[in-house]
């Protein structure tokens, strides 16, 4: 392979977001051109700060981090403090980055980079799609400038914040619909696949044991999730956001099928549901533009993550 793969990460770190961002930053095959922050798991002031500090944590201060949306397009903001804590990284504290603050906003910076990369830029989204929807609104040619959009979000079946909606899409369904409607090559890493990317207790303790700043971050950032695991309703540590990053590293870890996807924006109980025509007799009229990921090689995914995180000493 001649060059590294140019990647943009839009994210709301976020516990599993943090692992995904760190993986991407430490992956020699990937060239992270920029990171943009969006509200979601926590308020944007935290996710922006966390994104900056993650770059610093990975000794990658040169990677530019851009501020993005503070609220969804139309809906009231909902965050997920039960899982990610108020600050987005649970009990963990990261050293402050002293990198200069970028002047461009997320959507402008993304567009500029997409143009510069001339069709090669992979857009990875790990949070609500608010920044991306804004970028599409302002720059209608942007979908054509991207090699692909790799989304953690949605679910062909089930949900996690409601019985039928996944958190990232639920937080800003209008933004998600904008992306599903106008995106060209979309890859949806929804709960169908990301809930198969869980970490067993033994695997968790294997990663969490020992010394070092990465191990400590891993332990402390998963404190809220560990407490939730005590709940009788059952809870797993899912590596949702690591999935699209791992896919860029090695696509053969995943299996998916093409479908047209819409995000419901109007339903009374289905707001934020991603409706796919994967299994229904009737298909949507529009061409299938989304590969809905359904299976993952879980062991290989975990190996990938641990290999990347080990590089942080």
């Amino acid at each position: 392979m001649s060059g590294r793969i140019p990647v943009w990460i839009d994210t709301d770190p976020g516990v599993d977001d943090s692992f995904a961002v760190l993986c991407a930053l430490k992956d020699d095959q990937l060239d992270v051109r920029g990171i943009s922050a969006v509200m979601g798991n926590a308020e944007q002031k935290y996710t922006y700060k966390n994104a900056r500090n993650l770059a610093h944590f990975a000794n990658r201060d040169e990677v530019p981090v851009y501020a993005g949306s503070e609220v969804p397009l139309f809906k009231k903001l909902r965050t997920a403090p039960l899982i990610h804590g108020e600050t987005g990284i649970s009990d963990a504290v990261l050293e402050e980055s002293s990198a200069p603050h970028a002047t461009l906003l997320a959507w402008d910076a993304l567009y500029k980079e997409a143009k510069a990369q001339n069709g090669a830029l992979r857009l990875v989204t790990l949070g609500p799609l608010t920044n991306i929807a804004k970028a599409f609104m302002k720059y209608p040619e942007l979908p054509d400038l991207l090699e692909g959009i790799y989304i953690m979000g949605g679910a062909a079946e089930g949900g996690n914040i409601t019985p039928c909606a996944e958190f990232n899409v639920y937080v800003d369904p209008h933004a998600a619909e904008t992306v599903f409607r106008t995106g060209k090559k979309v890859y949806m890493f929804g709960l169908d696949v990301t809930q198969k990317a869980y970490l067993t207790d033994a695997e968790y303790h294997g990663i969490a044991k020992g010394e070092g700043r990465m191990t400590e971050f891993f332990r402390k950032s998963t404190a809220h999730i560990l407490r939730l695991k005590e709940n009788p309703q059952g809870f797993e540590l899912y590596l949702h956001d690591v999935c699209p990053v791992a896919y860029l590293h090695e696509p053969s870890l995943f299996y998916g099928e093409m479908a047209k996807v819409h995000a419901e924006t109007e339903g009374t109980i289905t707001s934020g549901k991603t409706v796919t025509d994967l299994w229904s007799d009737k298909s949507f009229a529009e061409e299938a533009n989304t590969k809905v990921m359904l299976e993952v090689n879980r062991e290989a995914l975990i190996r990938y993550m641990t290999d990347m995180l080990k590089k942080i000493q």
Partner: protein
Amino acid sequence: MDTGKKIPVILDGDPGHDDAIAWTVAKASNRLDIRAVTTVGGNQTVEKTTYNARRICALLGIDAPIAKGNAFPLMSKPMTAGNFHGTSGLDGPKLPEPDRPLSGYTAVELMAKVLRESEDPVTIFSTGAQTNVAALLLTHPELKEKIGCISIMGGGIQYGNWTPAAEFNILVDPEAAQTVFQSGVPVQMCGLDVTEKALVMPEDFETIRNIGNQVSRIVAEWLDFFMIIHKEMGYEGAPLHDPNAILSYLYPEIYDIREMHVEVETAGLYTRGCTVGNYGKIANLGVLEQPNVRVVMNVNRGKFVEKLVEAVKKYDGREVKI
């Protein structure tokens, strides 16, 4: 367990090939006493489904009163399945003409009368849109306690068929379905989750045809007709939706049934008519609402076909003029 006492039942549907086969199964059971047949628009207009219902009753020897249901869903515009079941709504073999007049009651009045007059709780099998059942529940709250169970074919927790998110029967009248689910009456739901696993294969058609009685020949021809469109759609066999509402009630042991909270989306740009079931884990520890529906998720296909064959055999010796 056969206590000798039959369960009083009402058959409510929009026949339709699979409704017709569902009623064939219901009439064959010595555990069910059919007290009324009511119709609803859906697979075809209510005029056509009512005519079909009367012809099916003449064929099977169902001698309960038959009442025509509402032409209009509670809130939606009427819709039909177009040519899915043919222009008559029950194309294929020739059937006997109706052998008795329609009841003078409306569907809701007839259902209410059956409930009032029954000593034992009545089970309602609803294999079309739930319009009549919802209208009954809304207008006769005092009779709710007389309903033992409402066993429906409709919905799909995992996916839809008529739209990507909605199954046909629910899509025809989402408000009615939501009324039924929220009624507090025990509801059992056979959605696409199970009914698309209840495939009857072409070789099973021959097993049924070879039983050799009049009903078996007609059921086989219904299956032949039903298979044509499903084959075009890529199915290996005919998904026999409606008989599951009866068979999962009679033989729960051959089904995988899970209690969960189910609601129907009545708004939505893409999700109107979607049956939302809470069957997973809600990661933010959102409120888990109390289960209100027994959702049938899977079936032992072999046993399903066995029960079907058994039912059709019960018609040995019955022959009506066609």
